[in-house]
């Protein structure tokens, strides 16, 4: 039996491919992976985190993409909701396959959006969360 290889890196590569795409860059929503520390000053931005677990079939994965959306606090939730809609536009029901021979990542159509309130470490920002489930299908080789 061969060992599982590259499935987590493959999953991240698929997610990165969205944020590296020209249409997403044109949306001008600064989006960073958790663990990256930005020196940039942005009035609004998003930080994503991936939680994944074994699918139990053919080395595939399933999980949730968590995205924290930060917008200026005090202006209400409208802008955060619009950004969540933009994430929906690119993620809900979408498929990514940077290496289609080996695997594909498919996002479900259902997503969740919650306004959380002022960010704990910076009350000038309103934090909200967007979540969407995905499956990473590793193909038999």
């Amino acid at each position, binding site marked *: 039996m061969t060992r599982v290889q590259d499935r987590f890196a493959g999953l991240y590569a698929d997610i990165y491919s969205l944020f590296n795409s020209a249409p997403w860059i044109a949306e001008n929503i600064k989006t960073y*992976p958790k663990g*990256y*520390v930005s020196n940039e000053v942005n009035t609004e931005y998003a930080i994503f985190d991936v939680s994944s677990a074994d699918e139990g079939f053919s080395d595939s994965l399933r999980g949730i993409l968590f995205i924290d959306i930060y917008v200026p606090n005090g202006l209400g939730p409208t802008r955060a909701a619009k950004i969540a809609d933009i994430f929906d536009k690119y993620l809900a029901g979408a498929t990514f396959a940077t290496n289609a021979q080996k695997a594909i990542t498919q996002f479900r159509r259902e997503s969740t959006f919650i306004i959380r309130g002022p960010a704990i*470490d910076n009350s000038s920002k309103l934090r909200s969360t967007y979540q969407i489930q995905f499956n990473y299908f590793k193909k038999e080789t």
Partner: protein
Amino acid sequence: MRSTVKGYVRKAFALLTDLAENVDFINSNSTGFNYATGLPAVSAPTTYTIKAVVISKSMLDPNKSITKILVATELLEAANIYDLSIFDKVTVKGVAMSVVHSKDGQYKITNNGYTTTLYAILEKS
């Protein structure tokens, strides 16, 4: 009153003479996350050399030491530095260490308006 306290801090740092040493504060100047490479995009780092005092150095475990560094806030402001969290590394006596960015607990960067305290970690590779 504020200027009086600042004056005392200035005088205290002057009295420290060689106990205060030049510490390099290094900002790696990340310009975003490069999704093509999966790594931060960086330009040339910026280094500020500021007189600072190493307050303590202790071992967290056999491979990791933490150093507490005290800086006169006035010296930072004179260099147009208002937030030490922008720095990734410091160099003390030629040894490069990583600045601790902690939001809570004992290793948080603190600034009382007169002195700024930060922590830096050195790990054996």
